[in-house]
């Protein structure tokens, strides 16, 4: 299995960090609000929750995306693409190129900044209607796309 581009790990960490920061901000606001209240719970010293949450979230945004990144993988065979993902529920999807209806290459703003792309294979299926393969370098994605396009053309001929 080919791993995703290492920059995908940076992307996953950035995304996780953004979510963690929003959560942390909410916690800080909550603590500020609590500090203004006339009653104070005895067991809660000020900034205790923030003090615990901040390092935990930081550690999580380093480690969890790493696990997620390692769960991803793909294998480009002659006639099909195999995509593997998921940590808790591990899924392995096989898409025969002959079944691909159309191909998308998608890039979000963060992905563009990091030079990454997502390849989306659309089939006529229901569950496998859009098989996504993120974390490719744009030129890899384009190579894959052109290979698949050639295969579809062969298949139609």
């Amino acid at each position, binding site marked *: 299995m080919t791993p995703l581009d290492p920059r995908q790990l940076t992307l996953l960490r950035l995304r996780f960090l953004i979510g963690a920061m929003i959560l942390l901000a909410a916690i800080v606001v909550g603590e500020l609000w609590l500090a203004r209240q006339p009653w104070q719970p005895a067991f809660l010293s000020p900034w205790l929750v923030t003090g615990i949450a901040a390092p935990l979230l930081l550690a999580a945004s380093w480690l969890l995306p790493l696990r997620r990144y390692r769960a991803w993988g793909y294998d480009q065979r002659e*006639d*099909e693409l195999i995509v593997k993902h998921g940590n*808790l*529920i*591990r*899924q*392995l*999807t*096989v*898409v*025969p190129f*002959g*079944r691909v209806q159309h191909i998308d290459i998608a890039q979000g703003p963060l992905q563009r900044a990091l030079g990454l792309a997502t390849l989306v294979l659309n*089939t*006529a*299926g*229901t*569950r*496998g209607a859009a*098989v996504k393969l993120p974390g490719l370098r744009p030129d890899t994605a384009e190579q894959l796309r052109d290979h698949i396009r050639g295969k579809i053309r062969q298949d139609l001929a």
Partner: protein
Amino acid sequence: MTGLADGPRRLHPISMVDNAIKAAPGALIGMVGAVGVLIQRNPALAILIAFGILAFLLLSAAISWWRFSYDIRANEIVIAKGLFSRQRRVIPFDRVRDIAIEQPLLARLVGTARVRIETGGSKKDEGLLDMIDLAGAHALRDLVRDMHRTPAAVTATDQPAAAPVEPVIFAMSIGRVLISGLLNFSLIFIALAFGALQYLDQLGVVDIERMIESRRGGAVAGLLNFRTAGILLLLLALLGVASGVLRTLLRDYAFMLTAGETGLRRRRGLLTLSEVVIPARRTEAARIETGLIGGLLGWHGLAFQTLGADAKEGGVQDAAPFARTDEIAHVLAEAGFPPLPDVAMTRPPARALVRRCGPWLALAGVAAIAARYLPYANWAALALVAMALAASLAWLREAHLAGERSLYVREGLFTQRLWIIPHEKLQVVATRRGPLQRLLGLSGLIPDTAGAPAMGAPRIADLARAEADMLAERLLADFYTARTRVRAGLPVT
């Protein structure tokens, strides 16, 4: 008897009435509401509003009839509609899969039909001619059928040759429809009736509380004793059976399946006659359903999963809703589908049972311990044990088989479903392993097909891991060989 004149034509005028009737329930509810609120304060205004709504209904029906036209040309049909924003749709005949003809009660009384031009596109009402005369509908259907036989040889002005009589593959007698209705127990009508009652109560037309109150006044003591409850339940059951029979009779009366040019043609209905083609090329899988009681008596239902066309039935079309095994085998053979499995299917491994029951039983244990402190927890424990039991029963009924021409998947707790997925119809195959499955060395396998329902699509829930990987590879290999054979026009062995 062409019935197909040159130039744009309007729909049958009766469609105005039909449209008005169709829009009526919604308008009526609004009318009842408006009048109910206003009648005491300002009766004149209330009546004016009622008439206004009625007039609007009729006028809009008339206008939409006036602005709707269809034109059958040599190679295409053109449909134009709309008052302010005109829409003109061209449907070339070589894109038309078939013509579905439906005759609701009103249409049958005046000799008209609703025609749906099936293109296999995703939109349902792509080519809907809501009410043209029946002769015209049949002429249009024959025209399209002839086109399929000898492409571009027939034009709209030619006399369409009389359609050949299609061989009947499956039919249901009235007796059989009634038996199937008896097993088609449903409580949906009762729920609907209660819903309607509640709505009327909200509008102040009926007062449910007082209705119940007056009963209670007469029989306070008797209301909750076992006999009354028993009678009530019996009544409910009878109503359920009766509504099931009625529903099935309305739908499946005079059920007939014939072998058409492009696929199987299905006609059925008591009041509303419908005629639908299940296109052979777009039939992706077969599903054989066996009910709990019906199964004991040897009855099964065959349906085909099709792509596009009628989204109303979730893409799964009845082909033989109540049939014996040999009849189903016959329909499958006529449709060019792989036969029913003739060897024993593979059951899921015994350790899969741990995954199915384990979590439920563990929760039941927790609930049983909690029962020492919480009053109702033992009931929860009992319910959880029941869940575990249901899960093991479901496990007991699962099986799969990779046949020569197709994959067979069987599943379902009460209603058992056997899916037949021809190898050449496979789209994407995936294996899935949850945490417990990894612990037990198991894996699920999901064969995806085109038009598969989002809920209740076939899947093999548990397989030994190595077996799942092998099966996925084998399905792929079978897909390529089957597809190559189909491409080459060879029979799929």
